């Protein structure tokens, strides 16, 4: 291989797509490292604090697209205080300085300020695609800057972000000359939208394939948009409040009939509970359906709709569909690969689905490989059946709303059920546990879950042994997050070197003490061990007291960048 000119190697490496593989390629020898580095165009950084932006820009000189993730996963559930970190500004600034030819920026759980968006829009003339997932810190002013200055913008995708709406006319900031838009998703915005500007934008974007509207877009505008853009592949309906007998509704039906290409349907953010029948005509073409933000749809309407969706591969719904509804899904959607069932009333704590729905799905949908299931109860028998029916799970996330609930029939812990899952699903990469669980389930996980990369534990286990089984057994573990479980220093310190093979470890409300964390930090300088100390719970006194002082929240991650300099007061890096 050494006798090939660089260009040939580069060409060969072009066929190596995944990050993991490219990382492996780059470790073969110095030459390969060099070539792979300058030819890699898409970079993935799973933890924005694991490495500094300058180093990334330096190594990957051909960088065009970067994905960055910031806060730990449990930040989604309010377990991380708001100012913890995850700022994107330093990255954008460093890339601008290094003249990186950035074209695509994908961020998850990061803090994005309006300044960063403005800097972004002005610094990269070829910038094409901005995808923000679960981010915060920006307003519609920032969006206006992106709209105005990114002349080649193809994709603006905002998913579940917390955006402050300044009721500006950001949509009208897209210049009249901009015709390149392919994907526009602003469903998470809460404020008013300049509707005429939206219609004009859609009218002059012949390449528009994906459009997801916010609640501010009413039915008549939707209808006009659909007439203009029958080529849409992905549609997110905004508001769906209407009077079924009205003129508008009839027009809508006609417009929908023309949208033969729609493969993905979502939204219905404000919905009148009946009359989804207008969409029945496109249902047979759908491969993806997301009705998880539409609590107003009654289960019978949902079921009627789903009966038409024979080709569905991905379904996100609310639990008001019920077990019976899931049986309909099971009998209709034979190609289903991913299912997510969310609780329609997360505060009251009652889910309308039980283990029966899950079993029905497993019987009907043999191709299922990814599930997120919020339910009222579960049994070992059901899990064992599911494991037998669907051995192809790659992601299995079960959330029983009552976090330590045992088997609803036998009152036993759910160890055996989850054990069956990990044993049968040889390719399982992600697992979230809930229900009453003892150390036994972790023994099973350590034994069988060989491909497991991410594990989420809450209110489970009896002793340090549980965590130890996992750390010992799961060789491919990358992310481990634990809350409210009795794992302490013995488990934490059992194999400190392992943490450098992982991206991160989160432990909150467990038994680890300050002393244990300090010991770990001392032995592993390549890790940042952060203690999140809200409300001055702890005092940073040295001495033997450390061993009695429990740490409320600890987050550790491997890093090449050393201690981060933007940590707030309540975060101590040991």
């Amino acid at each position: 291989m050494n006798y090939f000119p660089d260009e040939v190697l580069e060409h060969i490496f072009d066929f190596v797509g995944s990050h993991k593989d490219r990382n492996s390629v780059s470790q073969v020898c110095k030459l390969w490292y060099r070539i792979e580095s300058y030819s890699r165009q898409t970079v993935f950084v799973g933890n924005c604090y694991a490495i500094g932006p300058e180093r990334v820009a330096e190594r990957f000189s051909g960088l065009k697209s970067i994905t960055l993730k910031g806060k730990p996963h449990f930040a989604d559930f309010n377990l991380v205080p708001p100012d913890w970190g995850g700022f994107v500004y330093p990255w954008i600034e460093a890339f601008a300085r290094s003249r990186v030819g950035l074209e695509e920026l994908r961020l998850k759980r990061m803090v994005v300020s309006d300044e960063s968006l403005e800097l972004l829009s002005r610094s990269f003339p070829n910038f094409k695609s901005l995808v923000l997932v679960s981010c915060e810190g920006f307003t519609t002013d920032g969006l206006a800057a992106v709209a105005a200055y990114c002349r080649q913008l193809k994709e603006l995708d905002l998913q579940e972000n917390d955006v402050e709406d300044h009721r500006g006319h950001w949509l009208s900031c897209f210049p009249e000359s901009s015709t390149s838009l392919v994907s526009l998703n602003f469903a998470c915005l809460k404020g008013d939208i300049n509707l005429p500007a939206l219609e004009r934008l859609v009218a002059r974007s012949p390449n528009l394939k994906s459009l997801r509207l916010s609640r501010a877009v009413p039915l008549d505008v939707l209808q006009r948009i659909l007439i203009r853009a029958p080529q849409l592949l992905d549609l997110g309906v905004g508001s769906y409040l209407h009077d079924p007998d009205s003129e508008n509704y009839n027009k809508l039906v006609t417009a929908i009939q023309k949208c033969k290409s729609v493969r993905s349907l979502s939204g219905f953010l404000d919905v009148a509970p009946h009359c989804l029948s207008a969409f029945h005509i496109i249902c047979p073409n759908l491969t993806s359906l997301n009705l998880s933000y539409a609590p107003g749809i009654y289960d019978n309407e949902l079921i009627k709709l789903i009966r038409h969706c024979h080709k569905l591969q991905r379904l996100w719904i609310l639990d008001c569909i019920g077990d019976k509804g899931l049986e309909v899904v099971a009998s209709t959607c034979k190609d289903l690969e991913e299912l997510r069932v969310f609780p329609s009333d997360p505060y009251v704590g009652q889910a309308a689905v039980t283990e029966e729905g899950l079993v029905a799905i497993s019987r009907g949908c043999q191709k299922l490989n990814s599930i997120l299931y919020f339910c009222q109860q579960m049994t070992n028998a059901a899990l064992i059946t599911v494991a037998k029916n669907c051995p192809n799970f790659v992601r299995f996330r079960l959330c029983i709303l009552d976090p330590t609930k045992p088997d609803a029939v036998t009152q036993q812990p759910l160890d055996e059920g989850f054990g069956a899952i990990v044993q049968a699903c040889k390719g399982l990469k992600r697992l979230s546990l809930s229900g009453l669980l003892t150390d036994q389930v972790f023994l099973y996980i350590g034994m069988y879950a060989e491909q497991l990369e991410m594990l989420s534990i809450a209110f489970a286990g009896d002793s340090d042994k549980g965590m130890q089984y996992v750390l010992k057994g799961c060789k491919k573990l990358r992310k481990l997050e634990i809350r409210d479980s009795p794992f302490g220093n013995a488990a934490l310190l059992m194999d400190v070197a392992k943490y450098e093979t992982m991206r991160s470890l989160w432990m909150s409300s467990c038994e680890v003490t300050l002393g244990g964390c300090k010991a770990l930090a001392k032995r592993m300088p390549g890790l940042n061990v952060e203690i999140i100390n809200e409300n001055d719970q702890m005092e940073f006194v040295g001495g033997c007291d450390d061993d009695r002082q429990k740490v409320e929240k600890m987050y550790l991650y491997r890093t090449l960048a050393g201690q981060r300099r933007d940590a707030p007061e309540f975060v101590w890096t040991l």
Partner: protein
Amino acid sequence: MTPPLLGGVEEVASSASLLASSTSVESVCENGSAELKERNYMGLSDSSSSGDSSAISAVTGESKTSLNLKATELRLGLPGSQSPERNSDLCLFASTQLDEKPLFPLHPVNDNHGSSMPKNLLLGNKRGFSDAMDGFSEDKFTSESEVNAMLSPRSSQNLGLKPGSILENLSSQPVKAKELVGQKPAQERPLVSSDPRSNNRSSANNSTVPATKAQVVGWPPIRSFRKNSLATLSKNTEEVDGKAGASALYVKISMDGAPYLRKVDLRNYSAYKELSLALEKMFSCFTIGQCGSHGTSGREMLTESKLKDLLHGSEYVLTYEDKDGDWMLVGDVPWEMFIETCKRMRIMKGSDAIGLAPRAVEKSRNKN
């Protein structure tokens, strides 16, 4: 279907003197070991925080002298946990689940061997105050436990700020004895801040309206964006879709002399009688107060019949405000029409209601 409450114990409300709560819970303490102790809000039980206990409290037949302050307790149960009235499930369950892990311990649980103070487990009750004090000195980590963070409606900010310190883990040793809740975790600071609201929570012992569900920080694990959206969306949908359909129809109910109002879902009832019974239960606590102050056998157990007498007597009248803004007497129009026109209700003192009835009758006559 009501989910059985796992391992939860509510305190027994015996002869309610001040505040009537409905049926009390008796959780049977089967494990006769010394760990199971009675506790109550005032820490009046004689089995005070001894060193070896693992803070289980089974509250059995609470002494009659202790005040039932259950109603003033801040209830902190997990989502899905029930208010004390749903007892039968609880009892049965409680008695068979000795080895269950505590659902939701507020403090680390000690085994028999632990020498530290009894850790208290939470499941909907607060620890007795004296216990709380004992706990403070020994467990510095939990001295400022912000259990309060979980009280739902106003705690949305708290959820973010207050850490999950409340949700302390189980002890590292398997807990043998059943962990029942009777202890209320120390809540000094939160208590102070929440006092004005604690009374609100107290009458959450009602069986018709679900008690304000306390929340565990970060549970269920749903993205906050989604949680907030769903909350707003379902509220809007309710408002939009007031009529036809299965959505709830909540109306406010005020009672003269009561410090706060209630809300009921009119769709839960199919007739006036059901509504009337529910309201009686809901507002009984206030009436008893009245009863006591009027000198009628203050400490007697208030029976339903007495309550009915009270409400059906000349004391109170149930009225509602209709779509036109007029106050009408409840009971004149058919139930279906009532549901559609009722905007809110008021339990008026009989004396105030003079003159209401004739007008109301006239109005409904005009309508018909």
